[in-house]
């Protein structure tokens, strides 16, 4: 050891010892701290609960606050199992309350009791809601205190039976103090005073008089009439209040004022109920006259309306019957708006009588009936007869009649007429059969349609011309319809044969009349499809008619000279083919 070392050892011996001791203590403290961490839970458990919870309350609250601020998600996760049931319980309570309210509304709205209350509301003139409240309100008066205003001392008290005892004087005193405190805080010494306090279902009403106040402790929702009753009681008490009542009332004063009877809770409830009923009863009953007048006006208006409609319907039905009975008219529908509009839809034969006179007789007021008709061939006997008369052009000596589709032709006529019309008669639309009973007159030579001699009389020539023209008209009326393309309808076979026969006859008549026939064969198509296709269709249909007429025996030269008309015709937009016959004079 050097001198220096020895000197240092001598000089710093004490400090060295202290340093060693301090180091030893630090080591000891560190050991204790390490052990304390392990022992802390046990120490906390072993400590007395009350001081420990008081000591921990503040740091735990602060720590919780810090944790909420810094690590909100973890707190939310930790509280989730707690918050969920609480929210569910609150929602369930709210729903239960809502269901209760809903049930009450339904019960009041639709139950027999609800209906009774509605009738009561109507009879008494009181709003329905007020009647419901009157019957459904449940309230109870627990205590009634008559309190001396200045001192706050209880002059008299009444309580409902069965309630626990309470320190009425202390309560009245505090109530007085609080009322003074409130008055001092908000209004000074004015007339304002504490009138009511509500906490939950508990309600406290305070009514002030000059010398005494009435405090009424209520549970539930009281009617307004209760306050009127309490005011009335307080006024009665003041009217008979002894001049020197002091701080309390003796038994004699209480009996004289009738306080026990007047302030008894059940008596107050009964008086309030009676007052409510009397108030409702004294309410002016609403006059029924306006209601009756309105009802009468409604009944009259409805009566007039239904009468008006019945008159319209009666007239329309009469018109409908007339239209159905009108020969040559087939009624399909009537669109009617009573006394506003009437539109008749139907099919009308060209030979039928016009509908206008029938419509004029309908007497529909300002309404002008409109008619929308399409043409058709009627098989009605009357119409068929008119058609036969028009087409046959019978002389006066010949009478026509139609019965059940059978055309009866009788009388006398020139042979020429007979020859021309006998065949034609069977082709008149609607004629099912012909009963021909016409005798030829003796001075009328019979015209033979064929093998006409080279020289014919002028009369015969003229007659042939007339017959030819009639026949041409008939030929031109015929129209061969196709279902599609060049496929004819089923009925077209008969019409084709008839056309061929008519053409042959026309040729014969033309020979007698000294004229020549030229045919125009029209092919038609509807507007459906492409124009090019339709043009080809028209050509095909005209060609089809020409070829089939040739096959049916019509003279080839007549058909060869025929013109095929295949231009689009807006007026004949149908799937058909037809003939137009031109009678050409022969120049000699």
């Amino acid at each position, binding site marked *: 050891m050097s001198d220096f070392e020895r000197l240092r050892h001598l000089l710093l011996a004490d400090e060295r010892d202290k340093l060693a001791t301090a180091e030893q203590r630090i080591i000891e403290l560190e050991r204790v701290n390490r052990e304390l961490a392990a022992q802390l839970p046990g120490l906390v458990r072993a400590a007395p609960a009350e001081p420990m919870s008081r000591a921990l309350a503040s740091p735990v609250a602060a720590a919780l606050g810090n944790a909420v601020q810094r690590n909100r998600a973890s707190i939310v996760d930790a509280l989730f199992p707690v918050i969920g049931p609480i929210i569910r319980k609150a929602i369930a309570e709210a729903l239960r309350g809502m269901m209760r309210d809903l049930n009450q509304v339904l019960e009041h709205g639709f139950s027999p009791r609800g209906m009774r209350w509605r009738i009561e509301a109507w009879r008494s003139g009181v709003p329905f809601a007020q009647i419901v409240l009157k019957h459904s309100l449940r309230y109870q008066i627990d205590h009634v205190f008559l309190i001396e205003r200045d001192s*706050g001392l209880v002059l008299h008290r009444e309580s409902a039976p069965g309630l626990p005892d309470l320190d009425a004087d*202390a309560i009245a005193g*505090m109530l007085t103090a609080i009322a003074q405190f409130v008055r001092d805080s908000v209004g000074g010494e004015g007339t304002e005073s504490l009138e009511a306090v509500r906490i939950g279902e508990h309600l406290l009403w305070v009514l002030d008089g000059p010398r005494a106040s009435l405090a009424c402790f209520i549970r539930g929702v009281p009617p307004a009439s209760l306050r009127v009753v309490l005011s009335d009681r307080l006024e009665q008490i003041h009217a008979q209040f002894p001049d020197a009542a002091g701080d309390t009332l003796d038994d004699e004063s209480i009996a004289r004022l009738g306080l026990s009877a007047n302030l008894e809770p059940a008596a107050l409830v009964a008086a309030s109920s009676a007052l409510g009923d009397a108030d409702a009863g004294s309410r002016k009953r609403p006059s029924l006259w306006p209601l009756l007048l309105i009802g009468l006006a409604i009944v009259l208006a409805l009566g007039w309306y239904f009468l008006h409609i019945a008159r319209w319907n009666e007239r329309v039905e009469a018109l409908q019957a007339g239209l159905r009975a009108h020969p040559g008219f087939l009624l399909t529908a009537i669109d009617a708006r009573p006394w506003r509009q009437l539109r008749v839809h139907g099919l009308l034969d060209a030979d039928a009588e016009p509908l206008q006179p029938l419509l004029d007789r309908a007497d529909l007021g300002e309404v002008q009936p409109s008619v929308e008709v399409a043409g058709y061939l009627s098989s009605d006997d009357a119409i068929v007869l008119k058609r036969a008369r028009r087409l046959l052009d019978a002389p006066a000596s010949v009478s026509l009649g139609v019965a059940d589709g059978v055309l009866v032709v009788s009388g006398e006529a020139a042979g020429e007429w007979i020859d021309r019309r006998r065949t034609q008669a069977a082709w008149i639309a609607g004629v099912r059969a012909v009963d021909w009973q016409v005798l030829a007159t003796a001075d009328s030579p019979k015209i033979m349609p064929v093998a006409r001699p080279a020289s014919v009389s002028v009369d015969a020539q003229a007659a042939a011309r007339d017959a030819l023209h009639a026949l041409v008209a008939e030929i031109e009326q015929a129209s061969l319809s196709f279902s599609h393309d060049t496929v004819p309808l089923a009925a077209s076979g008969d019409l084709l044969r008839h056309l061929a026969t008519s053409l042959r006859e026309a040729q014969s008549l033309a020979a007698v009349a000294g004229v020549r026939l030229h045919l125009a064969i029209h092919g038609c198509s509807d507007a459906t499809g492409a124009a090019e296709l339709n043009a080809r269709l028209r050509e095909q249909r005209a060609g089809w008619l020409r070829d089939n007429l040739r096959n049916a025996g019509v003279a080839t030269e007549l058909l060869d000279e025929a013109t095929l008309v295949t231009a689009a015709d807006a007026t004949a937009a149908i799937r058909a083919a037809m003939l137009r016959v031109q009678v050409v004079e022969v120049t000699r």
Partner: protein
Amino acid sequence: MTAPARKVCMLGDFGVGKTSLVARYMRNTFSDTYLTTVGVKVDSKEVDLGEPGVLKLVVWDIAGRSVLDALNMSYLRGASGLLLVADGTREASLRTAIDLLLQSRSVLADAEAVLIINKLDLVERWEVGPSTLAGLRQTMPVIETSALSGDGVEQAFLELAKRLAR
């Protein structure tokens, strides 16, 4: 028959032990928080006076202060008696009690008053001397009490009740 009731107001400086006296003697119907909110706490006690019967004291414990404001004055209305409370260890509280008595006379000219010198348990530290007390006793009843031990408390209320029952 219900006992007649009299309103009694308890006045005194802050910390003289009014509330402790009430707590020792009364029913403690309400919480002390009313003292700090409304400024008063009301309690009641029936005192059996023997021959005159039972008298109910309705005691308004008015929050301690040295000067009565308008609200405190309104609390005094209708009172028949006053309990003035002073702390024997603080002579200033005795002066305050006397001041409060004088202030209350504007509202309560005829109210019976009893002076309570509280904290008898600390009598060795009293600043109020016997001569002062003797002088005060010539004008009103003075009763030494200890809210801690209960000594004199019932006597003080009984004394006031007797005077009120006259």
